[in-house]
């Protein structure tokens, strides 16, 4: 089959690789009908996230039709079923899965000893996302093996198109969880850093959850335009001071809830602290650039919430713990517990409360995938979200 394969930093190729096979009883194989490039794939593309190996297949936002079923599926899925595959692989049986904390599933990461060394305890296996999280082949391919498939799937109604449901795999529940864990009240101003795909989903989620005012911060004009279309006010950080504007908008008090949908690769040249972070990264003194975390902690109203769906990989420097402690801020973060939210979100898509396909700007075949990584990374050609149809 054809697949998008990681060969090194900024080197992803459309290669012919062996078809996946059933390896465990709880596996299924799907024929991928649609998949997407995620912002967190760019951390792998730029090789700022450790743990990739040459030959790894990319992709963790996929859906398709079940074409092979393992012996242990026990009727949960059958050939011909149409499923979306959550990016977190879940066993559905361990203590964490039973509590709904799927992204820290205790069994699905087959390299759990490595993850435990890095993080203290294991996290769930993820598709196409480093050997720290299991080294599972990803879904930017014609076929995908889904481990623990009786639990790791989202069945979707035929009344909804692929493009309406594909983002249940990651960015929609990720933006949703980021907003939900803010515990949004009708009087809240919610500030969202980053108008990429997760930021766009977080905007819509905050509106659905009843925020009084949503503000989005970015410097890419078309992304800010899409944010405004979703009901957000916008701040272009190239043109104005984020902190001054947020304080102006909130009568000097700051937003109650702040969401970081930027993560470890904050703009490297926009601020002095990011430039220092970039220099430290270059000499291995720091792994991530936490400019957004610092700005959120500074501007957030006392007793507010910092919600962090943005991906961080390792160590950050000059983290303002004094601000966080003295203002009594709450931090909520984590990879998304996708299946915790998806039944509710499918219902909301069916009800017409939201249609996540609004974010798609580019549709390509698998062979154009490598070029689209570059276009997406460089934010060229108005690119916000790429869907690949193998």
């Amino acid at each position, binding site marked *: 089959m054809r697949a998008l394969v990681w060969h090194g930093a900024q080197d992803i190729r459309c290669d012919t690789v062996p078809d996946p096979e059933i390896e465990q009883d709880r596996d299924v194989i799907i024929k991928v009908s649609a998949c997407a490039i995620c912002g967190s794939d760019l951390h792998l593309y730029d090789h700022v996230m450790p743990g990739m190996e040459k030959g790894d297949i990319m992709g963790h936002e996929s859906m398709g039709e079940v074409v092979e079923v393992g012996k242990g599926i026990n009727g949960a899925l059958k050939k011909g079923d149409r499923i979306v595959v959550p990016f977190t692989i879940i066993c559905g049986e361990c203590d964490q899965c039973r*509590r*709904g904390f799927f992204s820290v599933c205790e069994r699905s990461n087959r390299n759990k000893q490595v993850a435990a060394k890095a993080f203290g305890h294991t996290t769930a296996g993820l598709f196409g996302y480093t050997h720290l999280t299991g080294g599972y082949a990803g879904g930017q391919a014609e076929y995908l093996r889904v481990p623990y498939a009786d639990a790791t799937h989202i069945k979707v109604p035929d009344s909804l198109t692929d493009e309406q449901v594909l983002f249940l795999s990651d960015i929609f529940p990720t933006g949703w*969880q980021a907003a*939900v*864990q803010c*515990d949004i009240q*009708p009087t809240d101003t919610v500030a969202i850093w980053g108008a990429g795909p997760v930021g*766009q989903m977080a905007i*819509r*989620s905050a*509106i*659905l*959850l*009843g925020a009084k005012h949503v503000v989005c911060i970015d*410097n*890419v*004009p*078309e992304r800010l*335009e*899409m944010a*405004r*279309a*979703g*009901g957000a006010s916008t701040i272009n950080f*190239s043109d104005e001071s984020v902190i001054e504007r947020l304080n102006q908008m909130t009568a000097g008090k700051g937003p109650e809830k702040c969401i970081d949908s930027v993560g470890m690769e904050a703009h490297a*040249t926009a601020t002095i602290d990011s430039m220092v972070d970039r220099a430290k990264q270059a000499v291995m003194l720091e792994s991530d650039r936490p400019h957004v975390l610092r700005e959120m902690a500074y501007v957030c109203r006392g*007793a507010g*919430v910092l919600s962090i769906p943005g991906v961080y990989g390792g160590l950050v420097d000059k983290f303002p713990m004094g601000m966080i402690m003295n203002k009594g801020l*709450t931090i*909520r973060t984590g990879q998304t517990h996708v299946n*915790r*939210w998806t*039944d*509710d979100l499918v219902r*909301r898509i069916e009800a*017409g*409360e*939201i*249609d*996540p396909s*609004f*974010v798609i*700007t580019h549709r390509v075949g698998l062979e154009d995938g490598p070029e689209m990584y570059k276009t997406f990374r*460089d*934010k*060229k*050609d*108005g690119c*916000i979200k790429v869907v690949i149809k193998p």
Partner: protein
Amino acid sequence: MRYEGPRSPRRGHPDTATDALARGLGWFSIGLGLAEILAGGAIARALGMRGQEGLVRAYGVREVATGVGIVTAEDPTPWIWGRIAGDALDLVTLAAAYEGNSRKDNLLIAAAAVAGVTALDAICADRLTRSTAVPMPHIGNYRTRTGYPRGIRESRGAATDVEGSEGMLTPALLKPWAA
């Protein structure tokens, strides 16, 4: 600040890379100019141009003025073109001093350095000229990409009945008191 122009695939974006290059050339200009003013005698001797210390210092004043213009101007484009004119003057002056010069090696090194910086100035000026002073309409029109099929009024607050949030919200005992 100028913006990526009609031939850029990212038109509408601030052209921060070229702006940074221009400002860098401005600071270089100030540094070189100060050196020429403060060490005009030594530079003139090193170039075999004894007796032309005043000219070197005058060129230093020109460099500082151009550099300050580049660093402080909203739009550095005319000042970068000014640098190119200054580079040309430097090259002509060095060429005129070549015949019968006792320090030809140093003179050639200086000319090569000026030529290198001139090339950088030219690249910068070319990019600045191709960019625009005001943002162009950007690629793609996303004004209608609301994401709410039933309209934003219908969707605002529609999900206050969110399912699955147990244990991920502020504990009841830590909730704010009613104002």
